[in-house]
């Protein structure tokens, strides 16, 4: 066999490439579908200040943002790996920070001094949404 013949791109190589592309596309699509079901689909983090919605974010996001309230109140809200917490706050008592991470629909972190409610809404297990 002519050795240089082995060094040129052949029809079989193209077919192999097409097969690999197809396999990659199938795996990628499957992965996307699975991720949707894993993420509990459409869970959202909503923050209310004195009853008024001030933040609405998907729980799948990566977010670290301050939420301001009256009298220079500040709560740093952190969303990561499908969980949310108040990372730090300048409220007396620090109850909101001590509550740690929440991830299930219906769970809440409340900062009374700042009149702040951080709630996870949506998703399949959201009993509160049905009752409301």
């Amino acid at each position, binding site marked *: 066999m002519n050795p*240089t013949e082995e*060094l040129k*791109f*052949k029809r*079989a*190589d193209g077919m192999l490439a097409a097969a690999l*592309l197809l*396999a990659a596309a199938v*795996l*990628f699509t499957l992965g996307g579908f699975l991720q949707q079901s894993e993420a509990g689909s459409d869970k959202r983090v909503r923050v209310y200040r004195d009853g008024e919605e001030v933040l609405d974010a998907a729980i799948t996001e990566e977010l670290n943002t301050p939420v301001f309230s009256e009298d220079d109140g500040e709560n740093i809200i952190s969303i990561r790996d499908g969980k949310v917490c108040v990372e730090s706050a300048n409220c007396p008592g620090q109850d909101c920070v001590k509550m740690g991470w929440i991830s299930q629909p219906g769970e809440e972190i409340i900062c009374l001094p700042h009149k702040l409610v951080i709630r996870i809404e949506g998703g399949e297990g959201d009993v509160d949404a049905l009752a409301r």
Partner: protein
Amino acid sequence: MHWQGKKMARLSLLLAVAVLLGYVEAVIPVSVGVPGVKLGLANCALLFVLYAFGPAEAALVSVLRTLIIALLFTNLPMLIYSLSGALMSILLMSLIKRGPFSIYGVSAAGGMTHNLTQLLAALIVAGLTGSTPSFLLTYASLLILCGMVAGFVNAFLASVLLQRISPEALSGN
């Protein structure tokens, strides 16, 4: 005897090149944003050995390269990943080479197998902790894609080398 000595010298030289290419890539990583995905320039040297010498010689160089890299630059536990990847890769490349494929198909299959075997070994050794099935599927698809592209690049480089350097000068007397 004389011939064997010459062959060993040439293979040693290619082994050194393969190690060096792996080292260069470790020092100057060309990241494509997917962890664990590299161009695998050393594969270019392996392809050269596979086509200029043969499967046995390529396997020998591949295993030695992996051992040297592991001893010099990485920790030994990593050896099980890289060694399984290297072995599976060279095995599949030798098989594919017998088929209707050119160096491009061989290289693409090799690069892809290397990546996938490493992922598989990591799963078996480290367990499935922390990785969701969706992540693994998506990751595997990226490994296939990147392995293929990298394989084609390496095949092109190796084919240029193989055409410039006559095989007789290497494997002959």
